[in-house]
């Protein structure tokens, strides 16, 4: 079963929005996925003509299902997800409304346009978001996944290794400790330091492993690099991205772009040129261990 059997690309008619078509076509080809393109156009055109205008190479046309309408507001995009069995949405962080805007600020609410924000918050499936400075660099060679020991990061890692196995990528994993946020990340998980040469490698290993319980060994073997860094998370990740040039950054996140939150995401979106695959945690099964004082 393909990781993403169906990919949705909403286009609002802007150049910015259309930048992702190359990546979408490449990904769909590699995955054998169907590509649903929502093309906002004042007047519906014959499919071939519309595809040509979108500059989708003819070789990819058999993969594409084109949907044309005068506009695709966020509700229409989100409704298309279940309707077409979509498993990935690929879109630009800012579309038509943002094309003319000035230099984006670090605040992710300003970096991400209204439609994109509604989609990434409301989408039940992962969203591949193209940052404002997106530069197409195909084919992808590797994927970078920040991990933290938190459930959303687990989901991101699991998806990343499956994607990597399907598309033939290396997976680089990074865990960054922010000394100014000691309750986040590895330090929060490892409540006792103990013998550093035993505890920290084992903990780092577990932070990676815990995200992979259902992944096949050949998928896990895609992980070829694991880094432990300390410092500002956004800065350290940006430096890693600069150094390793991943094709895509896969990020687990909580799902809301409120001001003040998603700070790291905001900084990354401003700085990087590769797309960011946003993965929200799935609903977890209930789990209970009957121990402790609650028993009495």
């Amino acid at each position, binding site marked *: 079963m393909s990781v993403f059997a169906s990919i949705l690309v909403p286009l609002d008619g802007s150049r910015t929005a259309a930048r992702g078509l190359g990546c979408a076509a490449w990904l769909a080809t590699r995955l054998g996925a169907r590509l649903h393109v929502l093309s906002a156009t004042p007047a519906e055109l014959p499919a071939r003509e519309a595809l040509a205008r979108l500059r989708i190479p003819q070789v990819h046309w058999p993969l594409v299902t084109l949907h044309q309408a005068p506009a695709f507001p966020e509700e229409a995009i989100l409704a298309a997800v279940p309707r077409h069995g979509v498993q990935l949405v690929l879109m630009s962080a800012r579309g038509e409304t943002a094309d003319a805007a000035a230099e984006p600020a670090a605040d992710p609410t300003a970096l991400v346009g209204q439609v994109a924000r509604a989609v990434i918050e409301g989408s039940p499936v992962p969203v591949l978001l193209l940052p404002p400075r997106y530069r197409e660099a195909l084919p992808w060679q590797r994927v970078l996944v920040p991990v933290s020991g938190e*459930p959303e990061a687990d989901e991101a890692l699991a998806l990343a290794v499956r994607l990597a196995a399907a598309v033939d990528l290396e997976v680089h994993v990074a865990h960054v400790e922010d000394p100014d946020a000691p309750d986040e990340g590895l330090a929060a998980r490892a*409540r006792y330091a103990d013998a550093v040469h*035993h505890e920290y490698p084992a903990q780092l290993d577990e932070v990676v492993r815990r995200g992979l319980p259902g992944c096949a060994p050949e998928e*896990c073997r895609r992980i070829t690099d694991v880094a432990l860094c300390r410092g500002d998370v956004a800065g350290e990740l940006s430096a890693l991205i600069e150094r390793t040039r991943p094709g895509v950054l896969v990020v687990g996140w909580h799902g809301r772009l409120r001001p003040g939150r998603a700070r790291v995401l905001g900084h990354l979106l401003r700085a990087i040129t590769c797309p960011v695959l946003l993965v929200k945690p799935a609903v977890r099964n209930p789990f*209970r261990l009957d121990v402790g004082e609650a028993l009495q």
Partner: protein
Amino acid sequence: MGLEFDAVLFDLDGVVTDTARLHAAAWAELFDEFLRQRAAAGGEPFRPFDPTADYLAHVDGKPRYEGVRCFLAARGIALPEGHPADGPEAVTVHGLGARKDAEFQRRLARDGVEVFGSTVALIRTLRERGVKTGVVTSSRNGREVLRAAGIEDLFDARMDGLDSEALGLAGKPDPAPFLRCAALLGVAPGRAVVVEDAVSGVQAGRRGGFGLVVGVDRGGNREALAAQGADLVVADLGHLDVAGLDGHLRARREAVVAWRIEQEGFDPAREHAVESLFTVGNGYLGVRGALDAPLSGSQGDLLVAGVYDRKQATRPYSELEFLGGGRDDAPDAELVSAPFPFRVRLAVDGVALDLAGPHWREHRRALDLRPGVLRAHDVYETEPDRRTVVRTRRCASLDDRHLLLQEITVCLENHSGTLDLDASLADPDLATSHPHLVPLEAGPPDPGLDVHRFTTRASGIEICLVARTTLAGSGRDAVRWRVAAAIGEALTFRRWVVVYTSRDTADPRAAALERARALRHEAFEGALDAHAAAWTRIWERADVRIAGSPATEQALRFNAYHLVSAADHDPRVSVGARALTGRAYEGHVFWDVEIFKLPFYLHTCPEIARSLLGYRHHTLDGARRRARGLGHPGACYAWESTASGDDVTPTTIRLKTTGKEIPIFTGTQQIHVTAAVAHAVWRYWQATGDRAFLRDAGVEILAETARFWASRSTRDGGRYRIRGVVGPDEYHHSVDDNAYTNWMARFNLETAVRAAGWLRSEDARAWGALAERLALGADEPGQWAAVARDLHCPGPDARGVIEQFAGFFDLEDYPLPREERFRAPISRLFDWDRINRLKVVKQADVLMLLHLFPDAFPPEVVAANYRYYEPLTDHGSSLSPGIHAAVAARLGLREDAERYWRESLWLDLSNAMANSALGVHPACMGATWQALVFGFLGVRFTDAGPVADPAAAARLPARWRGVALTLAWRGELHRVEVAGKAAP
């Protein structure tokens, strides 16, 4: 005394209101009409709905549509699901549900609602006693029924079918509605009682982890209610009162809950931690508690004590970042993990039954501590509505340590089909998961036997696993089974796995085959019984009763279970930092064996304590090599050792990403482990009077270690000093005169002198032989005595505080933020050199002295040191809270003592360190036991045996009504009992 529960949750129909007969009649009306029409149309005979049997089996207590589905499935009828808006005319699941509802409404309007007077009386009494009450019903008419019966005011919270639907909750037997109701009442499930008359409701109560589940049998349902988990079944609630409920709950906690660690549900991210907790072991081997049908990411390691090999990339991810420095090429650098020996693959009609797939509905595991058995219960639903139940149990025999036992029972509850069971132990990912192993043989030497033989790459140890699997009643063995299973038939498979290594015998294959072939199918239960009997003998000596706190009892038993599972009677092995429950710490043996774990063994299973000291005697040559390497005579035990006793501590680690290199000082400077061994030898001698041990091993250990200390101490200004060490507090390296190290070294020197004198007078010939073998100079014991006399052992200053090491008081103050206590930040790793200059302590250091030498310091000195060091300590080690609990308890600091005790007691069960996935913490378990025995109880040993401190009663946590345990002392078992203030 308060009640053991805070809330009671009642089912409505059949428990509070007598509407069950209305429901049964409405169901009968619906289904009879439907079945009649179907019979007429299809020409098949009409078989009516049985308002008793069918009602109880298929629809009672379930949400309406679920009841329709279940009954139809039982008759082999499939209908379209339809839509919730379907009217009664629709021949769909929802349509039939609407028809039933209409019929029920009609009868409700016509007949009204009667209540059970006894139930209402009980509810009123409960409310008068301050107990909260709730009502939980699957009925969408719940509110109407309550209103019609005029009893809305009897309940503080209610959940009916409409509430569940609005919240998106699954219905009974899912526990969600009950859990939601308990949450509305603000009561933990463990402190709530569920009262139910339906099997599905009882299942929900059990699965929800409620404190007590009461079944109400209005007729013909008693056995089913009990079988599905009702703790007691009554014909009417008139048979119960508040005191009765309280008594049953208390009894259940003490008899069942306090002997079991139960897990319900499944969270893949927590699975590795659960695997550690649910390890089965017997000291010779340990098997992590992976699922019987493991996920690809499961870590179901089989770890055999003493089987080490050269370091391999067993942690493939971290080793991309952490680069080791030194000692990695030792042929016994780390413990070897072998393939999971309980692996099975199950499929029904070609559909795999495992938790990786979409078909599982229930998953429950329980570690039964009393017999040392891990049980699992899984329910699967494969299309269409085919329910299959898989129950397993497994153990590592404590009666025959080479033997593993596993039983798998599969029941196709409501369908027939073909069951496939593949019992092959072949690991599909051996090269990656178990890189130390080179396969030598895999396959059956004769039909039915599954042989897997490996050799380790560098140490050349051969490991052989031989498995036999049989289907009960078949009289034969096979590795792969395909069986036609009838509806409701329970198929029971039993597997024996025999494990031998070349450390046990020259030909492990022959030994394993011989043992496996000698096993008889009919002896399986007997083997389980023998295993349980061995555990019974353990519990007679190791159990601790805490009256009034079953949760504490449960945790103490869990700890004792793991400590016993960790230790063998083989003097060539010891207990690693994570025992045989995980790969972390690579099976390395530290000082924690002697200081933290050994007292538990010494006073419960002294023969194990002897064996652990045997390991130190067996590895004395390694300790001699290490002393020589450090430029000294005698023996210096390795900070981290494995099979040979040579030091396997790395010298550095390097982080590839940052390029940062972090030196590891412990290997060369943490020499106090040597005195820890000596301390344990003397402690063992004191507790057992085992003359043979002292003569044959103890004196040699003491003499060789004393030689080391005499050389390692340097004379300066009329005093001997020990410079350049790391004490228990590993944040500070290269320190001089660490108080703990020096006091322990002096103890080592003094006891060596006493032991030498004892042997000289007890057995002059043996002493002569030893002196000759060790080339002991006649004046050496005198030199040890002189060094001991003049060794600088820091004492209390004017405030009563002992300086941890020379210059500690002058270090830079470090205001330890509250959030860093028990949460050491990563800067402890990255900024190791800065930490060395700060007044922050990793773990009990000076406090260790106060703990180990309780008579050496007056109470005011103990108090002064506790007050000084406790605020400086961030507890960066699992060894720390237990010692703080012990010292605080002796000082009567109840709040501190209980806080640290809880941290230590539930460290693994609460995953407090968030690292139990790497294995459990046996030394912490030992420290917890010591905190109880030597801290709260203040036990001292006299010639007559152990005596608790007269002040102990006042120290016990308020809830405890008393403590009772058994302590071994000089060949006898002594009962120690202390009544708490909460005693009735």
